[in-house]
Structure formats: structure tokens, C-alpha cells
């Protein structure tokens, strides 16, 4: 057993770190660090940088522009990107659609869409969730009816992250309402957001932000050639996508960044004349979550290592997701507690580029309570933690 990274892996880490030092604009890293709002251009810039370096799509096969990295390398790469405060890569094209097209798409679909994902021509969004079908995808209601060489799509999608920036949406639609089981009769369709009948409406989240949307589809005509895989077999694509690349689901790197931030804050904040970091209860809470994170990181590496031997992560990745989100949420809770009364001010304009007023309260305090509430989503989306427990219970424990 060798629990540490090998010299080769550490050399790779150094290479990534060095490249990030040059490629990532410091102003952009500052925005990410300060939890400022990112513009579409911010995302596009970073996308382009990664594409230029050839590091945009580590999970794709090399022939389509992938990197040929081992799971350990992918893990190191993601860890370093988070550590450097790089913007996240919007996952819908790269992480989600790409692997589905590569597995189920026609040669023509692959040749057309994959390069456009890489070069940033098409911004993709995801059309899975519907009102009334959160964690229960099989109950979706959006209908697609074949009409000549088109499908006519009617329905409503929701929680469409960054859909207001998107050119295209991949979408689950019901093509056979009479199918024996609800997850049969679903198809996987690619929809041009510029099509007549597509309307994107913002959803404002509890923290006052606009990141997700509703997408209304009214008599939207979609060419039959935009079907991926077989008609009525879209569930296969959806399941593949849900089980793909889940070793980084724990968000360990984000937790490490958050914990480092927490420690800096707690060292500066005073409580009863001493640094908060020396308050026995607060220090104990920080130490407890750090211990959990330490263990979680090893658990994550165990699965990365297994993936490196070709063992597909199964329901264990659900355990990672549950504990990972618990740890991240606990850290956001301690962050909001750390700043005491200064958790209260809420100045939405402070998160825009160009806001120059003096911050209220300690440095970096302003996004913290907002972040605490926003991060409640972690245990809800991507399959709620309750769904993950059901999966573990069934698949891993056989209950």
C-alpha cells in the first residue's frame, strides 16, 4: 500500500501548478476567491485557456481531445485548479454531454458537436429536472411527438444552471407515454436554444442570485437527427451520465479551500480578547471537521486508486457524495459563525465586478452567510442525499 502520490504524480502536480501560475489571470482568481459573480466572458476565457493547453476534457478519449490521464492525474489536476482559484469548467458540455455522445452518438454527431464543445462555439445546458420531478427523473412529463423528420417538444424544464448563457440544451423527453415502466419511453434529445418556442426564465435562489432557470418548451421543432442513441432508450444515456466520473463528487478540494479560509478568518477574528481560533469550542469544531475531511480525502483517494485499476466506482461514490457535502456544508456553517454579527449584512451589489466601496465587517465576510445558504443546494442537487442513501442501501447493502 502506498498512500502518497508517486514521484511521477508529484511531478505532474508541479507541472499543472506551474501552468496555472502562468495561465490563470490573477484578477479572475481573485474574483473566484472572493466569491464574486463570474460573467459569461470569465467562463469563456478560462475554457479557452484550457482548450489551448489541451487540458479541457480529461475524461474524453484522446482521439477526441482527451488527455489520457490516469484517475490519479485527473484528481491532481482538479485539486490544483481549485487550489489556484480557477473558475470551474461549466460541466454540461465537457463532463456530461461529451461522454454521452462519445458512447452513444453517431459518428456525425460526434464529429459535429465535440469540436464545438471544445472550442467554445456551443455553450450547453442540461434539461433533466422538471417541476414535480426533482430526484425522480423517471416521472418526467415533457413530451416529444414525432412529426415527419422532426420531434415536436412541449413541456417545462427547471433548475437549468446557466441556461441563460446556453446555445444548446440536452434534454430528456418522453417519446412513449404508454411504455410499460416510467423510465422506458424516454429519449435523449439535443435542442437548439434559438429554436422558436424556447423561453428561458430566471429562477432567483434564496440568496438572491440568478444562476438557475426555468426553460419552457412550446411546440419546439427538433430535427430527428438530434436524437442521441435510440428512441425510447434515453434512460440508458441518462444513467450512464449519472454514473460517469464520480470520484471527484466529494468536493474535497473545495472543502480544503474553505477550511483554509476558515482558519485564516478564525485566526484574525477576536473572541473575548483572544483569537477565535483559540476559543476551545470553536477550535474543537474546526478540528472535528478537519478530521472528517482528512479521512474523506483518503476515502476519495481509495476510490481514485480503484478507478486507476479499472474498477468502476459504484455506490461508494454515493457515500463520497453524502459525506463530502456534509463536510462542505459544515465548513460553510463555521464560516458564517466565525464572523459573528457581521454575518448579517447583505449587499448584493458587492459581488459585482467593479464594486469598490469599503466592505462591511471583516475582509471576505460579506459572501459568507450567503454562501452558507447557497450551499444548502449541495445536499439537494445531483441526486439528493436521501436518494444517495437509497442507492447505497439498495446497491451496496442489498436492503
Amino acid at each position, binding site marked *: 500500500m502506498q498512500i502518497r502520490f508517486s514521484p511521477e504524480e508529484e511531478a505532474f502536480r508541479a507541472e499543472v501548478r506551474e501552468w496555472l501560475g502562468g495561465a490563470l489571470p490573477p484578477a479572475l482568481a481573485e474574483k473566484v476567491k472572493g466569491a464574486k459573480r463570474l460573467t459569461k466572458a470569465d467562463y469563456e476565457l478560462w475554457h479557452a485557456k484550457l482548450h489551448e493547453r489541451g487540458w479541457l476534457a480529461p475524461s474524453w478519449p484522446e482521439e477526441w481531445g482527451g488527455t489520457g490521464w490516469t484517475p490519479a492525474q485527473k484528481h491532481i489536476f482538479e485539486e490544483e485548479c481549485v487550489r489556484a482559484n480557477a473558475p470551474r469548467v461549466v460541466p454540461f458540455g465537457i463532463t456530461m454531454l461529451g461522454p454521452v455522445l462519445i458512447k452513444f452518438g453517431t459518428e456525425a454527431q460526434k464529429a459535429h458537436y465535440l469540436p464545438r464543445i471544445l472550442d467554445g462555439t456551443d455553450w450547453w445546458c442540461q434539461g433533466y429536472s422538471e417541476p414535480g420531478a426533482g430526484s425522480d427523473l423517471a416521472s418526467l412529463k415533457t413530451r416529444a411527438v414525432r412529426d415527419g423528420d422532426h420531434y415536436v417538444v412541449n413541456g417545462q424544464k427547471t433548475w437549468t444552471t446557466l441556461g441563460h448563457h446556453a446555445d444548446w440544451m440536452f434534454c430528456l423527453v418522453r417519446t412513449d407515454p404508454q411504455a410499460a415502466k416510467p423510465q422506458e419511453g424516454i429519449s435523449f434529445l439535443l435542442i437548439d436554444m434559438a429554436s422558436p418556442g424556447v423561453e428561458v426564465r430566471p429562477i432567483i435562489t434564496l440568496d438572491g442570485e440568478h444562476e438557475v432557470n426555468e426553460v419552457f418548451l412550446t411546440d419546439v421543432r427538433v430535427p430527428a437527427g438530434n436524437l442521441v442513441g435510440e428512441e425510447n432508450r434515453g434512460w440508458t444515456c441518462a444513467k450512464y451520465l449519472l454514473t460517469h466520473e464520480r470520484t471527484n463528487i466529494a468536493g474535497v478540494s473545495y472543502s480544503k479551500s474553505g477550511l483554509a479560509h476558515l482558519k485564516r478568518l478564525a485566526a484574525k477574528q477576536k473572541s473575548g480578547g483572544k483569537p477565535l481560533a483559540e476559543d476551545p469550542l470553536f477550535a474543537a469544531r474546526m478540528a472535528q471537521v478537519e478530521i472528517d475531511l482528512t479521512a474523506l480525502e483518503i476515502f476519495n483517494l481509495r476510490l481514485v486508486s480503484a478507478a486507476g485499476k479499472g474498477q468502476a466506482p459504484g455506490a461508494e461514490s454515493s457515500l463520497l457524495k453524502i459525506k463530502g457535502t456534509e463536510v462542505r456544508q459544515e465548513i460553510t456553517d463555521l464560516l458564517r459563525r466565525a464572523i459573528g454579527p457581521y454575518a448579517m449584512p447583505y449587499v448584493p451589489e458587492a459581488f459585482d465586478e467593479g464594486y469598490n466601496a469599503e466592505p462591511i465587517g471583516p475582509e471576505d465576510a460579506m459572501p459568507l452567510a450567503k454562501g452558507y445558504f447557497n450551499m444548502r443546494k449541495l445536499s*439537494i442537487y445531483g441526486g439528493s442525499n436521501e436518494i444517495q442513501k437509497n442507492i447505497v442501501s439498495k446497491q451496496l447493502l442489498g436492503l
Partner: protein
Amino acid sequence: MDFALSEERRMLVETLERYLRDRYPIETRHAASASENGYSREVWEALAELGAVGAMFPADAGGFGGEGEDISLVFEELGKALTVEPFLANLLGGTALALAGGQQGLLDNVIAGVTTVTLAHGEPASRYALHHVETRAEGGRLTGRKAVVPNGDSADHIVVSARVSGDVDAPEGLGLYLVEAGAEGLSRRGYATVDGGRAAEITLENTPATPLGEPGQAGDLIERIVARGVLAASAEAVGLMQVCCDTTLEYLKTRKQFGRSIGGFQALQHRMVEMVMELEQTRSAVMLAAASLDAERADRERALSAAKNLAGRAGRMIAEEAIQLHGGIAMTWEYPLPHFAKRLVMIDHLFGDTDHHLERFRNFA
């Protein structure tokens, strides 16, 4: 031993409940929150007329209540309606006026809803330390900074704590002063708060002020004012928890998933039971705190800290579980629940959080 309400208090509660239910739907509340002062003057005046402000003060201060139970009942109702009107600010400022004496005319106007007052006590470096005051009083003028003052941007009058002598954390050497909103050298930076309220950073630069009571002797007064704040915040938390529990229970009953109402899933049922249990625990602790508000100091402070500790601990649990059991819809601004959850969690940042009061509880053993 009898936990029933007196007839007068039952009527007050019913009056408040009816007004808020009929005249203060969530849209009205959001509009009030988004307005310039962050609350509705009209609602404030109407509630004052119904006696909700007067109930916070004893008869000898011009009110008709002022006991722990009065305060907790009012604030529980305010919590249930997610009220943003400046009750806490006026409870704090008004209690300062009432306890220090000598400003009955002003207090009468506060109780009548004609004018408003707040307390500017916390400072940028004080966190939750009860007597940490760096603001100085010299020659009847104040200089210093006050932090996160509730409704500090719109209050007509501000009671300010300042140090006459002593170290920054000493309970001795503190005074309370009345300052007019438009006083010379006073500047206010108002802002919204995460829970839909308003607060301000206040800077005083050689600002003229009227002493309330004996300068240098206010340490104990401040503790007794904050005691009322702790009780009010904890009772408001109970009201908020009640709504979070009720809303979640209703959602569990109506929301369908995998072909059945999600309230049929035993794992969710058991979590709902735990939420209700923590609500009842907090409610019980608040009852004890209300009954102990005028008890001797150690009993009072222990009961208050127990209530505030539970309000913070159960409050977080209930806020988080309510959102989690709802799923996505509770992440949206449009849905009322998350606003209750936000206020509930923010109460942990008022007058000391759950750990602060755990420590305080044991220090008064």
C-alpha cells in the same frame, strides 16, 4: 403550576395573530423589506395601535406588559409572520429609556408608534462580548463606531453605549446616551441584512448626546437590556421554527414522488418528528426564560442562555432540515420557507450564538 395564558394575554396573541394573518401576507412583508426603511410604517403604526409595542413595556414605563411572558408572546407571533418591522430595535432602545428613566415623553411616543428608537451597542471588534465598548464619552460628546445596529438607518433616536472609563472589556465605566438621528458628527451607513431586515454601521465623531442615567454605571443596565433582546430573539425563533415545521409537514403531505406522497417515507417521517421535538424543546426553554426574566441574576442568565443556545442549535437543525426535506423549491426566493429559514439562522448571530450561550450557561452555574 399552570401553563395556560391569562385572558388578557390570550386576547393580545389572538389580535396580533389575526392582524398579521389578514394584513401581512408574505408579499406585503417582502415589499416592506424592499422599501427604503426596510419596513412598513403603516404596519408598524397599526401594530402599535393594537398594543404590540406597549406590551413590551411595564405600566410604570407607560406600557401595559413588560414581563417576560409578554415579550415572548409578542415575538413568537412576529416570528410566525416573519415581521420586519422594528420591534427588536424599539424593545432594546425603549428598554434602555425605561430602565434608565427620565425620557418618559419619548418612550410614550415610541409606544404610540409615533417615533422610533434603537440601541447602538455592538462594535466592529466586540463580536458577542457583552461589555466590549471602545466608543468614548467625553464632555457630553461621543466618538466611536457602532456595528450592525438594528434599524440603525431609520431610527429617529439612538441609544448609544459609550465608555467613560475603564478597559475596553470592563463592565464598569460604561454609560448610555441618547443621540438624535440627525446629530452633528453622526453618520450612518445603512444596509439590508440577509434575513430581509435593515441595519447600519454608525460612526460618531464628537457627537452631542444626552446621558441616560448615571454615566459610568450602565454595565448592569446593558445586561438587563440585552436579556430582553435574548428572550425576544429566542421567542421569535420559536415562531419561525413553528412555521418551518408546519410548512414542511404540509409539503410532506402534498408532494408526490415515485408515485406516492413523500410523507409516507419513514426516513423523512422520523426526521420530521425530530424537528418537532426540537421545536418543543426550544419552546419549553423559552417559557422558562420568560418566567425567569425578573429572577435573580444567575437564574435569569442561565435560563436565557439555555433558551438562546437551543434557539441557535435547534434553529439551525430545523432551518436546514426544512430546506432539505423540501428539496429544490426551498432554494428559491419565490417560496416563503427559505426566508423563514434565513431569519432563523440569523438569530444565531444576535446577542451571542449557540456556543457563546453554552459557555455563558455554564459560567452562571
